[in-house]
């Protein structure tokens, strides 16, 4: 069945088919609209970063040669032989200060004003700087882009579960949420919004630790006794399982 590509079409896609047909009378040309001006005087240098897919990002920039001149004083003699580069930073889970990136790499861009950049990994946060690089590998950044997060190309390895109940509140249009997780089936330990925020602030605390914090807050000193009791129980059941295993072997 089927011959036509039906995936994601819109009404105007038919025009492609139209163009394949013989046209008796061609459409008269319209007056050409003026082209778009790229830069305007006084506009600060800007660099934009966009995500294409898990392994590609796209950078475009508006920078004039005059903007690069601003680096002249800093670079002195090295300026004349420096090359224009894009420095790509992996800043996953970081408060980036310009120097603490997980890793980075450079791409020479010459006089181009955009670049599709391949990445080595999916699911990362990154940003880009454009600047001049000297022969001695010194980098002088001119402007930094926005930060983007690339999609994950695979299912997550995390299997922890947090559940949330969202119900309309009495206040019109506002919904209240209540989050929880559980250690044992049926036993809920409630989490605060701050807990959820921390959980997703990777590398954030593991869910187990968040739940332990919640329990500690509820039970105070009793928590340590409960934890010890829990650990003893776990050890006991482990020993029992080990002994069963030995029996089976015999």
């Amino acid at each position, binding site marked *: 069945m089927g*011959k036509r590509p039906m995936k994601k079409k819109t009404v105007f896609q038919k025009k492609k088919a139209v163009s394949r047909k013989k046209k008796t009378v061609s459409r008269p040309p319209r007056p050409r609209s003026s082209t778009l001006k790229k830069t305007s005087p006084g506009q600060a240098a800007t660099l934009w970063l*966009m995500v294409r897919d898990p392994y590609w990002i796209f950078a475009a920039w508006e920078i004039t040669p005059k903007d690069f001149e601003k680096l002249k004083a800093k670079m002195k003699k090295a300026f004349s032989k420096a090359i224009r580069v894009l420095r790509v930073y992996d800043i996953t889970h970081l408060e980036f200060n310009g120097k603490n990136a997980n890793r980075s790499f450079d791409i020479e861009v010459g006089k181009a004003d955009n670049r599709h950049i391949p990445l080595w990994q999916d699911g990362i946060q990154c940003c880009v700087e454009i600047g001049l690089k000297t022969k001695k590998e010194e980098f002088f950044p001119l402007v930094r882009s926005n930060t983007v997060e*690339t999609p994950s190309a695979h299912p997550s390895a995390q299997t922890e*579960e947090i559940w949330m109940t969202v119900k309309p509140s009495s206040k019109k249009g*506002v919904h209240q949420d209540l989050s929880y997780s559980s250690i044992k089936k049926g036993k809920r330990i409630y989490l605060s919004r701050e807990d959820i925020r921390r959980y997703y602030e990777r590398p954030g605390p593991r869910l187990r630790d968040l739940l332990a914090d919640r329990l500690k807050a509820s039970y105070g000193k009793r928590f340590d006794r409960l934890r010890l009791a829990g650990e003893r129980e776990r050890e006991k059941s482990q020993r029992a399982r080990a002994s069963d295993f030995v029996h089976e072997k015999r």
Partner: protein
Amino acid sequence: MKDNGYLCLVLHAHLPFVRHPEEEYFLEENWLYEAITETYIPLIEVFEQLIQEGVFFRLTMSLSPTLVSMLRDPLLQSRYIRHLERLIELSCKEIERTHDQPQYSHLALMYNQRLHKAKEVFVDRYQNDLVAAFKNFQNQGYMEIIASCATHGVLPVLNANPESVRAQICLGVKHYQNIFGCQPQGIWLPECAYFRGVEEILKETGLRYFFVDSHGITHGDPCPRYSIYAPVYCPNGVAAFGRDWESSKQVWSSREGYPGDPDYREYYRDIGYELEYEYLKPYLRPQGFRINTGLKYWRITGPTEEKEVYRPEGAAQKAALHADHFMANRQRQIKYLSSQMDRKPILVAPYDAELFGHWWFEGPLWLDALLRKIAHNGGTLSPITPSEYLKEYPTNQVVYPSPSSWGYKGYNEYWIEGSNDWIYRHLHLAGKRMTQLADRFLSGGRKNPLIQRALNQAGRELLLAQASDWPFIMKSGTTVPYAKRRIKNHLNRFSRIYRDLLGGTIDEHWLNQIEQKDNIFPNINCAHYFRKVT
């Protein structure tokens, strides 16, 4: 029999803003006219008939603000009637011409009747305002209409300017409130494109849910227990519903999909390209080039150029069979899933509304048959809307969806690649400038009305340039010059307003002109939504 699961059908209706008062006839306005005749009116007729017969159905639908604005525009409404009258005349002429060819004459008669019916629905029943029809369906409880972004901008791509994303969402919601008189519960993110963080703006605007493609959920963090068969909550409590790939494939896929069946009508063989030019000339535009008329006499037949004559009865039977097949497969899915879950699974099946009727002529018949079958002998399957599901199951797993879209390869590649990537520097620069303008001229006490008008028009021009349709057309290679011209025109108009506002010299006459041309969102303070996000 007990309901074991739910089917959530979602129709996303969208067209770019193609209104050209500067010319008496404009080819691209036909996109709207064709969609009205072939999709929106047939769908309205299906829903009306179901309601009249007391068939219970539930449907979720989004009508993009650009489409709603065009459907409510008096100029386009009057032009549509003119378009329809010419087609009716052509169909009458076709009845005469095919008088001696019975295999074609009954088709000519069918089109003639359909066109008369379309005119009756449009003019007599709804007084040219089709949005009122959808509003009625919502008010009667059969349909949940959700919001969409202002001009269908792809949000992950626009996010280099967070203010643009905010403006797209907030304006979309505001427009919805103005038109439908209530708060939308959910939103259709253009191209189903999601990025992390957008849910914060959705929550601020009072939205409870949105949709993502399957891998948006399955690649979410942590791994979802129920995959795409139950919604998940983002960390802030906004729900995400995942598209069911199996349901989608049966309708969209070029191999397994229903619309490619040999018995269905062939879209690409239109009398506008088949008949003698002199005969058609009075019905072509003054420019005289051939166009689609919507009168098509052949069926798909198979992978051949020799097409057989279309048989409406055979196609209708096939549509009913396909509805049966679709429902049986969903029931099988539900039966299996409900045995694995502690709740009723939900299958989310979103489609472009224009697929039904325009691309797939028998689509409305299929939908009609499906909704009837679900109502009468659904057994394990019931129709539902996302709001109803969230009401029944307010507790869901917290999973941060993964950035994704329903475009080619599942991400943003279709909108950022060699043919269209040049537009983003201009869009982002204009976005940055729009925020500068809004911050500078909207703060302070006394406001000059002319400045306000110029600011709002600047916002409109930017929004119209941000539509996802333009890069889409550039990539698909269909009407590329038009798409390029639209982007350039809007951005050039924006830049002129920007310069005029900063220079303190606004040309009121020119401003009047472009306000008439690009008249979307006339009653909304567009500039306000571009203010700096703090």
